């Protein structure tokens, strides 16, 4: 029982990342009709925003370590601690959550620049060409990051207070052995909030209404005298933002390296296809579903029956779904059918 609950939590955790990336991918598909292979790179950029932010906060000065008396020892102390004392130390400690404030403007800017600068010119081109140019862009972004940050993963710790494990079992009156890392729980809740925010934004605002109308029939909305293009640019920025936030919050779970985007990209694409191209609900649903399936498949009991299943379960599910339900689980008719 405990093992199953843990696997569900693990699955939700992985699925949360898939769902957030797939959500952004689907937004770009549904509105702009763009197959964005650089979306994984945006996820990675978000994670590196957190890295940069915590680096800025921890700009340090070398001072003499007074606790060592035998010889002259030096230690690094962040300026923030020197200036603000304990409050400064707390800010340094909370670097990752605070970096979200930094991620938001940066990712929106990147999204807008990317859409205006590159994606805009590819609306009329074939999907194959879109895939190719964004694939090239992903390589470029990766290599730039690699040039500045090196190829090794950069550990970016979560705040001290949430670095331990939460007694999930005891909270629900189950076994005391059932514990789960706090930060991962926070990630699940965080992604739920983001997903709800995006849905609410599309559902309850006028802007969202126009965007949804545009997704359904771009031409008619355009004929009604609405500048749908401008709104779609903002939607692309939102998609980039969602990927960036997902990446920044994921940094404590998986130390960011320049290649992390590619790994997530392939899986997220599969998630989008399983959920149904252009269906936001489908993307989220399939993200969590595949995350949970994957974590169950990596249980030892299951691996002993079907060896290697943990490696291929996602692809296997994708193949089966695509063959049985060509439009994906919740796909709409007429989207991306050529």
């Amino acid at each position, binding site marked *: 029982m405990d093992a199953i609950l843990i696997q569900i939590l693990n699955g939700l955790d992985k699925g949360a990342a898939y769902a957030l990336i797939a959500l952004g991918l689907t937004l770009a598909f549904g509105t702009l009709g763009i197959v964005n292979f650089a979306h994984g790179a945006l996820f990675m950029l978000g994670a590196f925003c957190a890295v940069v932010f915590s680096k800025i906060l921890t700009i340090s000065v070398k001072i003499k370590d007074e606790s060592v008396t035998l010889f002259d020892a030096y230690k690094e102390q962040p300026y923030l601690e020197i200036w603000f004392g304990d409050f400064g130390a707390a800010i340094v400690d909370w670097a990752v959550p605070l970096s979200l404030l930094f991620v938001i403007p940066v990712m929106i800017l990147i999204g807008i620049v990317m859409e205006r600068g*590159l994606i805009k010119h590819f609306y009329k081109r074939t999907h*194959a060409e879109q895939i190719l140019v964004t694939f090239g862009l*992903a390589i470029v972004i990766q*290599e730039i990051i690699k040039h500045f940050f090196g190829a090794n993963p950069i550990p970016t710790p979560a705040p001290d207070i949430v670095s331990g494990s939460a007694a999930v079992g005891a909270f629900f009156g189950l076994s005391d052995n059932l514990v789960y890392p706090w930060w991962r729980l926070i990630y699940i809740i965080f992604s739920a909030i983001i997903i709800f925010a995006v849905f609410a934004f599309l559902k309850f605002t006028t802007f969202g209404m126009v965007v949804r109308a545009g997704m359904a029939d771009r031409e008619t909305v355009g004929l009604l005298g609405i500048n749908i293009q401008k709104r779609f640019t903002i939607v692309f920025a939102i998609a980039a933002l969602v990927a960036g936030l997902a990446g920044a919050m994921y940094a404590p779970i998986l130390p960011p390296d320049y290649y992390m985007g*590619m790994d997530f990209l392939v899986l997220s694409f*599969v998630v989008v296809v399983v959920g149904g191209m252009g269906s936001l609900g489908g993307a989220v649903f399939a993200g969590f579903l595949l995350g949970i399936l994957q974590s169950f498949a990596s249980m030892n009991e299951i691996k002993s029956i079907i060896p290697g299943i943990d*490696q291929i379960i996602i692809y296997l599910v994708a193949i089966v779904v*695509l*063959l049985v339900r060509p439009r994906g689980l919740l796909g709409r008719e007429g989207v991306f059918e050529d």
Partner: protein
Amino acid sequence: MKNLFKSNAVIMLVFSAVVLTAPIWLDPIGANYPDLLQKFAIFGLFAIGYNILFGLTGYLSFGHAAFLGVGSYTAVWCLKLFTMNVFLGVILATIISGIFALAIGFISLRRSGIYFSILTLAFAQMAYSLAYSVLTPITNGETGLQIAADDPRYLDSMLGITQQSEGIPSTHFFGFDIKSMDGYFGFYFAAVVLIIGFYISLKIFRSPFGLKLRAIKSNQTRMTYTGFNTKPYLLAAFVISGMYAGLAGSIMVAIDPLAGAERMQWTASGEVVLMTILGGVGTLIGPLVGAAVIKYLENIFSALNNSELTNIFSWLPEAIQTATVYIVEPFVGKGWHLTLGSAFMLVVIFLPGGIMEGFDRVKNLFGFGKKKSSSEGEAK
């Protein structure tokens, strides 16, 4: 001049002459050493095969590296189990990867467009993950599959061929050591296979079969409405390009007998797409040019480093020199992929037809060759 190039025989003659004399005319640009020449031939073959699928039918596969990997593994197992003669390995690798392509293509081709790309990607990633994990007894996992001195080699021992010396035996082609002639035999071996592969591709391009594939690319719905079943043709193209990939993989093994799973990763599939696009999709010779250009630039750029850059730009004033080196440095050495990515983006944006389209444009600019030829790949 143009009419001459309409004839297959003339094209093949020119092509063979150009390929076989490559060590001579590539000498001035510093590309004349066997290792690089072999890469040109192998990846050229891979890209030419890939082009039969992507160039003719427009189906963008992101999983062809899997067939390359299957071909490599098959060839190594042949060397281990049967004989050090690479002939058998090459044949078997082509057949086995063809069978794989048949199975994967049969399923993937039930969908088209981006769904097809994702399906092939999923299959290739599955093959890659399995090669790393469960199939370790066959693929030897991360270490990669290698030949050893004490492999059984039943065919060799049956025919009474004994190992000539101690240590790991070397691959041969009916007695000719692949590594002989300072490795140039390896190149000529690959070059001959490339020429054969090119001939087959030429035949396909100019056959009714190739024409049908192009018709599918331009409008599949219309083909279906005229009562034409497109599936078998697509599948045939998929299998043929998969066999090319397996063949290329087996030649890699023939020259250097080891195989690793990283050859099957999806970025490796991406590389062949890059080559094809860079050279020119749907043209006969373009993919080969693209493969050669990428491998050549990789060789040049990844070898450069800071001090060499400083030398190269030493004719500039000091301040400008430092700035130039600072700007250029990320693009060379380990950052070579940055150059590749940017070049690739530029090509897709400004020159969707690749280098071959660039040639055509230049030709038209200077008034040669009048108009663009009626069908692609004809004027080459």
